């Protein structure tokens, strides 16, 4: 039962000494034992290390540690396989890193440890965070706990599954074009992509450096608020992290949302949107209105160019970032007669098809004669997309949209057609290009099959407090987040 609790519920029980952190950790490990052979959220779990951390937390609680100072004390939190945890494996869902063991902790991990968390497990993902289904993982796809023939989404699919299936209390993911919000939506949990610069990326393996952010995934909005406060803030080890104050996000939850102005972009309600998703979002809009928010139609006219822009900028940055995987300093090497042959063979054998496609595309758009036509043009369109949002935020406090155009699709349904897979990210990608924050919260279910639907709220740069307050008010006035997936079949 303890594994099913939210962070604040478990903190309450730990504070009152009703349970121990060891019992909570054991409950998660036994849930993993029961369900993960089917779901494959975890690539590995170091049980002894997890239980040792839990014992440490219990000792700290016994010694009178303060939950106010350590808000994650004794809370089991699992981590996506793209974030470094000292002395644990790090593979990024790829074969190319071989038997890599991290020599240091990512800043987010160090911060969670300082807040008392039990940091455990390596969560499955699309290779190097490139994908929307976890089918690009070199270690096999994860499965959606609502229907195991379907994808949990991606790239942080393992993180979403682990949270939805109560294998951990909360998890960290990373989001470059929707990789936290889309799997959160498809698995019926809450996922937050913070503003670019809100969270340090030291120890996050880079995919597209102008877009990547680490963010929290949890069973409810309050848990993501607690976790964001713990991991947020300026870090001297990441020059792109911004020196903005980190508020106590959980504190402002529960305040009224009366008078909040919310924009509904007309460009997000047409096209390939599944009518059932459209209806759920419209119902959510009415719910927000009944809570006192004022919803008005707005326009984000460059929405239709977001995917093309993203696949130029992200792949260009990836082609440079992934040059480091060359078999020289770490990872699985395939020998060659000279260095070039060694690189080519190592990378040919080590990368999966989607990673190769994106590196080749990124190399192409940066190559002589194509730079201006593709890369520079995409950077200019990115300015227009960002302007759309900054203009909208002059009129509204937040923007409401569907997170995904459809509910979870079947494994194998789109994996042979990369472009179809890319088009599925239409509602999440602009947020990263604009550098703003976004959250996905459960807003209903499709009728048959019974699958979760996600509502996306987008906020101003460093506007996470408003975003969380709105998402929390909506969540607490609806039943969706309380429904659990049918694991026993």
């Amino acid at each position, binding site marked *: 039962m303890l594994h099913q609790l939210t962070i604040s519920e478990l903190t309450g029980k730990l504070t009152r000494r009703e349970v121990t952190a060891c019992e909570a950790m054991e409950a998660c490990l036994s849930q993993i034992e029961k369900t993960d052979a089917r779901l494959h959220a975890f690539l590995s779990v170091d049980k002894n290390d997890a239980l040792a951390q839990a014992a440490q937390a219990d000792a700290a609680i016994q010694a009178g540690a303060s939950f106010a100072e350590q808000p994650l004390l004794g809370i089991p939190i699992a981590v996506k396989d793209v974030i470094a945890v000292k002395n644990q494996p790090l593979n990024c869902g790829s074969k190319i890193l071989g038997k890599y063991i991290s020599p240091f902790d990512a800043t987010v991990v160090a911060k969670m440890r300082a807040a008392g968390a039990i940091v455990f497990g390596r969560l499955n993902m699309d290779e190097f965070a490139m994908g929307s289904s976890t089918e690009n993982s070199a270690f096999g796809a994860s499965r959606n706990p609502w229907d195991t023939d379907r994808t949990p989404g991606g790239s942080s699919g393992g993180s979403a599954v682990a949270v939805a299936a109560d294998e951990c209390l909360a998890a960290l993911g990373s989001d470059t074009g929707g990789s936290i919000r889309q799997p959160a939506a498809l698995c019926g949990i809450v996922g937050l992509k913070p503003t670019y610069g809100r969270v340090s990326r030291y120890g996050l393996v880079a995919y597209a450096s102008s877009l990547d952010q680490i963010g929290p995934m949890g069973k409810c909005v309050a848990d993501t608020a607690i976790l964001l406060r713990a991991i947020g803030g300026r870090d001297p080890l990441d020059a792109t992290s911004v020196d903005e104050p980190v508020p106590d996000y959980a504190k402002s939850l529960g305040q009224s949302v009366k008078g909040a102005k919310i924009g509904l972009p007309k460009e997000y309600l047409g096209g390939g949107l599944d009518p059932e998703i459209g209806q759920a979002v419209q119902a959510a809009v009415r719910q927000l209105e009944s809570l006192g928010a004022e919803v008005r139609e707005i326009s984000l006219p460059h929405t239709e160019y977001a995917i093309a822009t993203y696949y130029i900028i992200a792949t260009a940055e990836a082609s440079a970032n992934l040059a480091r995987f*060359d078999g020289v300093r770490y990872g699985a090497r395939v020998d060659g007669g000279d260095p070039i042959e060694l690189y080519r063979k190592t990378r040919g054998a080590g990368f999966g098809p989607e990673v190769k496609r994106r590196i*080749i595309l990124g190399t192409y758009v940066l190559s002589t004669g194509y730079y201006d036509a593709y890369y520079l043009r995409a950077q200019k*369109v990115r*300015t227009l997309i960002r302007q759309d949002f900054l203009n909208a935020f002059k009129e509204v406090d937040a923007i409401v949209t569907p997170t995904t155009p459809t509910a979870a699709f079947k494994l194998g349904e789109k994996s042979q057609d*990369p472009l179809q897979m890319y088009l599925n990210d239409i509602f999440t990608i602009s947020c990263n290009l604009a550098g703003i924050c976004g959250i996905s919260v459960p807003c209903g279910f499709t009728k048959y099959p019974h699958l979760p639907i996600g509502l996306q709220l987008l906020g101003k740069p460093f506007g996470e407090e408003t975003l969380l307050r709105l998402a929390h008010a909506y969540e607490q006035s609806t039943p969706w987040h309380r429904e659990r997936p049918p694991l026993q079949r």
Partner: protein
Amino acid sequence: MSVREIDVRYVAHLARIELSPEEERQFGAQLGQILGYIEKLNQLDVNGIEPTAHAVPMVNVTRPDEIKPSLPAAEALRNAPAQANDLFMMPKIVE
């Protein structure tokens, strides 16, 4: 939607990735489709628009130039595929 030709073998060489003939054929077709889709951006007039490299306007982030502890050599070499004398080992580059 148009389909663009791309010399996959040449670009893969620039990216230092060895491909099988089957991969060359498959990626050529898929990337041609994706580039065709990307042509969409040509519909927009971007004259006079400044490019965005980075969504948060920060420039020249510096820190004091001080010596601080860093990863010890043994730790940095821990994951090396081949090493000797505190160095990464590679095939010979210069005769």
